[in-house]
């Protein structure tokens, strides 16, 4: 196992290296750079040249890449073109809201997906199963931005139950307790939308692996020695049935660094996803590059974690 992990980590290095070249080239070689968006149109030619030089845009692209990669390797991702803050500071500020949204949606989705999956597996072929299957089918077919827009329109705009966007009500000074509930109200809608998109896919995995598991011999043995239904399902069957789901969840969690771009965009949630969209509008190259690299690293890392988890939870699987 140890050697397997080391080999996979070593494989990740060239992968990330090529991703970095690819992303750098994509961002720098395409038309419509920061000059068109960021620079004051009334700038004189001299001022324009000075600004270009200060942002490091004068060097040939390969030289720019070498400068960028050598400082990135020491952990310095440069400074934002727009705010002049270190990129790391910006990412540090934007990551917690994304993590909050993602983690809460993930926990909620995991619980619900397991319960729904188990129920429809146990009641396989009944009306309950068909109803749950139909609902999750609808969920899979519903693009997340559409679900977000619909939820926002219905629960915020029409019914006024929940706030439509942001993280807090502006212009009020709340006591800490009120502020907490205010924040929670803002979290609820994007969290539910994100969770719904996860549940739709996950409960299918749960259902089919649960159906496989309850057919096993040891389940009959458990029943024969008098284990109650609930204990049998949740203590005996679930432990084995949940393994395929965990790997899928780990893979989905790999998207966390890119943020739930779409959900965050729809609900103006100030996390990594909306940072990405903002930086893109302003052609803030250092921020964009750092985010692309970070999200690629997360995807690769969670691919590895998913494989390791699989081996840990199912000792029959051996990696070499």
């Amino acid at each position: 196992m140890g050697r397997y992990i080391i080999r996979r980590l070593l494989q990740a290095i060239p992968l990330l290296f090529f991703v970095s070249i690819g992303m750098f080239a994509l961002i720098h070689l395409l038309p419509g750079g920061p000059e068109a968006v960021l620079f004051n149109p009334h700038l004189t030619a001299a001022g324009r040249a000075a600004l270009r030089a200060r942002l490091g845009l004068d060097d040939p692209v390969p030289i720019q890449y070498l400068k960028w990669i050598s400082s990135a390797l020491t952990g310095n991702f440069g400074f934002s073109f727009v705010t002049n803050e270190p990129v790391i500071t910006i990412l540090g500020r934007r990551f917690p809201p994304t993590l909050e949204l993602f983690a809460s949606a993930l926990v909620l989705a995991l619980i619900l997906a397991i319960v729904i999956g188990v129920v429809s597996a146990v009641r396989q072929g009944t009306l309950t199963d068909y109803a749950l299957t139909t609902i999750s089918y609808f969920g899979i077919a519903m693009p997340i931005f559409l679900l977000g827009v619909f939820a926002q329109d219905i629960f915020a705009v029409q019914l006024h139950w929940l706030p439509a966007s942001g993280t807090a009500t502006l212009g009020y000074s709340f006591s800490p307790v009120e502020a907490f509930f205010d924040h929670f109200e803002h979290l609820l809608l994007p969290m539910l939308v994100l969770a719904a998109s996860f549940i739709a896919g996950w409960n299918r995995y749960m259902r089919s692996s649960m159906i496989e598991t309850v057919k096993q011999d040891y389940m009959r043995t458990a029943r024969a020695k008098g284990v109650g239904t609930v204990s049998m399902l949740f203590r005996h069957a679930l432990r084995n049935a949940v393994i395929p789901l965990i790997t899928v969840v780990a893979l989905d969690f790999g998207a966390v660094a890119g943020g739930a771009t779409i959900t965050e965009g729809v609900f103006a949630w100030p996390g990594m996803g909306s940072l990405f969209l903002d930086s893109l509008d302003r052609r803030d190259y250092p921020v964009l590059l750092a985010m692309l690299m970070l999200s690629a690293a997360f995807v690769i890392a969670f691919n590895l974690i998913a494989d390791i988890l699989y081996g840990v939870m199912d000792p029959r699987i051996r990696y070499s």
Partner: protein
Amino acid sequence: MDISERINTTPTREDELDSFLELTPALVQKRRSQGRIILDRFLRNKAAIVGAVFLIVLTIFCFLGPWLTGHNNPNAIDVTNAAASFAGPSLAHPFGTDDVGRDELARVMAGGQVSLLVGLTSMLMAIFIGVTLGAIAGYYGGIVDNLLMRFTDVVLSVPLYLLLFVLSASFSDGTPRSVIILIAVFGWMYAARLVRGEFLALKEREFVLAARTIGVRDFRMMFRHMLPNAIGPIVVNATLLVSTNIILESVLSYFGFGIKPPGASWGNLVSTGQGLVDVDPKLVFIPGLLIFFTVLSLNLVGDGLRDALDPYMTER
């Protein structure tokens, strides 16, 4: 008795079998061609039929609708009526009008043409790229396979939406053509992996060896002999890819990176409608529900095809 006569009168095993089958009609199963078996299996799946019928109706609605109903100008503003904005359904405007008094029916149909075309053509391009790369990687193996698959890994390790947003921000000119190319350029990876896997298995089969011994060249071997045997999974992947691409187009257009107004697509109709939802919810819900039902139908048809083409494939 002449020997030839004896041969002619002796019942062959086939004849015996046929007469046996006639006596026991319950056991008779008509011989069907492979295509017929697949079609029958597909037709037995009610959900897939509903999806297929919806898609046909929708295509007629979007492409023939403007011509049949005369609602063929999505950008015309009704100037005969001063209060034409946000009008409810009427005989002149069955879906009402939008914020500047354009006929919503005409816009939805024009938007549907764009969304369906983008989904379909970018699927064809992506499948073409994916099948070619996957076939080459799986057929030649070795260093070619390694290089192509590592390249696929690189493209797959960056979240798709981030890549598409970056590229369309600088590269797309807001026309359907540029959106199609962008989506296709990043939609081939799963098809490539799929075809590579199929080819790795297929090239060990006897018929490939047989074809090689009669001197079939590489290109012909890949695309005439092996590819038809891998067509099932490709068709399923292609169907689902259309739905993915329609979603991608609508997300890009929703965030302003896809089809630019005044051009209509379902995605940017939802986007403009969202800002006006407290005035007129239909501007969001009509295009939104059309996206939803289209994607749902494509998934139903895709799953139906999967079951029809490969009865052993277990439900995911």
